[in-house]
């Protein structure tokens, strides 16, 4: 193990390490902690210039209550859910199929298609922006959640295919061959042999794509406008415009907007990290 395990060093080193940990964490998360403190302050603190002193009263419930009951925030949150969940389902479905095709079969063009997915996944969004927007307008889906979902599914399929294909590659191939010898149809092999083994990959993909899509801002701005279809990342800017300089509300709003992926991460940590670090270990 590297660095040398701390248990092997002197008691003093061990204690100072453990004491330094929380300090380092606080420094690392300082900007975030600052916002959390902002979000429980009363408005009067900001007008009095008391930004960093002890809050004159605890207004956490009032501030978050305002965000939830007196602003368009719940609507944006709902839009985010309605955009994110179908995207996750669609992407995982498509990528299981493409990953199966590319991972199991040897055919001409296999690697080429695989590389097309990877390369497409890396392109700058801006080169897609105008054509995708025009396409969405033409289909009558501009400013709809469906328009956003369709694009997200298509784009995320690139990354998800990379993941699924490599995962399927690592499965024991004799299993598939045994099924073939038994005369099992190929689609049944997919459904009854491969898919059940892919559960961990599906879970990892689902949490990752959930986070990516929830946090998307660029496409939300390009393909939607207004509270009827905008997700929370885009909604927060209009929310902030509404409460300009009301830092207590803006920070409460930001924390609410950031929370779902955070919750997802803590609930599904193992899968999340497995997905993110795919390929980091050979």
């Amino acid at each position, binding site marked *: 193990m590297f660095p040398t395990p701390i248990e092997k060093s002197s008691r003093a080193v061990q204690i100072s390490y453990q004491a330094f*940990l929380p300090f380092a964490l606080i420094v690392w998360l*300082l*900007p975030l902690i600052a916002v959390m403190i902002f979000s429980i302050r009363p408005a009067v603190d900001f007008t009095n210039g008391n930004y960093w002193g002890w809050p004159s009263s605890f207004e956490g419930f009032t501030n978050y209550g305002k965000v939830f009951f007196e602003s368009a925030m719940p609507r944006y949150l709902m839009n985010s859910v309605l955009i994110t969940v179908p995207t996750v389902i669609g992407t995982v479905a498509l990528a299981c199929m493409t990953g199966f095709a590319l991972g199991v079969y040897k055919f001409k063009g296999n690697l080429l298609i695989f590389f097309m997915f990877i390369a497409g996944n890396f392109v700058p969004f801006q080169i897609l922006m105008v054509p995708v927007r025009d396409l969405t307008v033409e289909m009558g889906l501009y400013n709809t959640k469906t328009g956003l979902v369709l694009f997200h599914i298509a784009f995320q399929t690139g990354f998800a295919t990379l993941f699924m294909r490599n995962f399927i590659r690592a499965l024991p191939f004799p299993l598939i061959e045994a099924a073939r010898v038994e005369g099992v149809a190929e689609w049944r092999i997919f459904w009854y042999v491969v898919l059940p083994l892919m559960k961990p990959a599906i879970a990892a993909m689902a949490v990752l794509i959930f986070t990516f899509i929830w946090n998307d801002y660029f496409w939300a701005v390009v393909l939607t406008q207004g509270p009827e279809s905008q997700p929370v990342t885009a909604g927060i800017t209009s929310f902030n415009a509404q409460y300009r300089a009301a830092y207590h509300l803006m920070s409460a709003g930001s924390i609410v907007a950031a929370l779902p992926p955070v919750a997802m991460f803590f609930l599904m940590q193992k899968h999340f990290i497995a997905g993110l670090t795919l390929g980091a270990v050979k």
Partner: protein
Amino acid sequence: MTASSDSHSPAQRGWYKRNEIAITPWLFLAPGVIFFFIYVVAPIWQSFGLSLYDWNGLGDVQTNGEYVGLENYNKLFGLNGERADRNFGISLSNNFKWLALYLLAIPGGLFIALFLNQTVPGIRLYKSLFFFPFVISQVVVGLVFSWFYLPNVGLLNVIIGWFGMESTNILGDRTWATYGIIAAGLWPQTAYCMILYLTGLNAVDPEQVEAARLDGAKGWKMLWYVIIPQLKPATFIAFVVTVIGALRSFDLVSIMTGGGPFGSTRVLSYYVFEKSLSERGLQYGYAAAIAVVLFLIMLVFISYFLWAMYQDEKGAR
């Protein structure tokens, strides 16, 4: 089975059965590939085409736009008697700043990973909390940092005030604003690199480490000659995601400064958006030309990534 198979002509059924293994992958690929083609591959070509037109985004390019050949590119680079677009130059140089400084996330992430790679009580929670910034959307990161940087009252200025320094308005300063945004971007990016390296460190071969220790290697030497070579796959992925992240920087610029002050924090991705969809824009052909330049820069890296992955695939066979 028998009843339903009667409706198929025996020849057709036989043909499918005989070619099942050849056809199945294409059936499975079709939906994904078609979708990807419509939304990703085709738009790239369309943007290339668009960059040869002068078009205000109304109606159809072919009818309402005017074909101008390479004129848009001439304007960008100041070729053929045109004056070079200064804003394009600023955006381009900012992109290189992003790229160079963003790479600091890799050693930064490694450093934190080494720091946290211990087994003390509660370390798992510490690792998760250190990773935290990556999970939050860039929009919120941008907001959080712009409040952190607030002149006079922002926490940063409060802290540097303790050391007797004068309050600065980082995001309002032409020279410093871009660096302020990059610092905000480095925060989640370093967290990502950290988690990659933590996973990598977990898989470092303990026997090699012990053997090296017996040979008297320790500290930096051990890190450089024994550990880092074993972390190569993690470093590769960290490099890929960091480069992509640097060139994709849009959210932070848009949230924190909107390209200002005086256009000093524009990057190519933001400039494309500004020239087309913002109210100052509506020059779609010109915006497409900028997007093409950004794409070509990215293509250099994409080619390298694919080449490296191809070498890997060959090795795996």
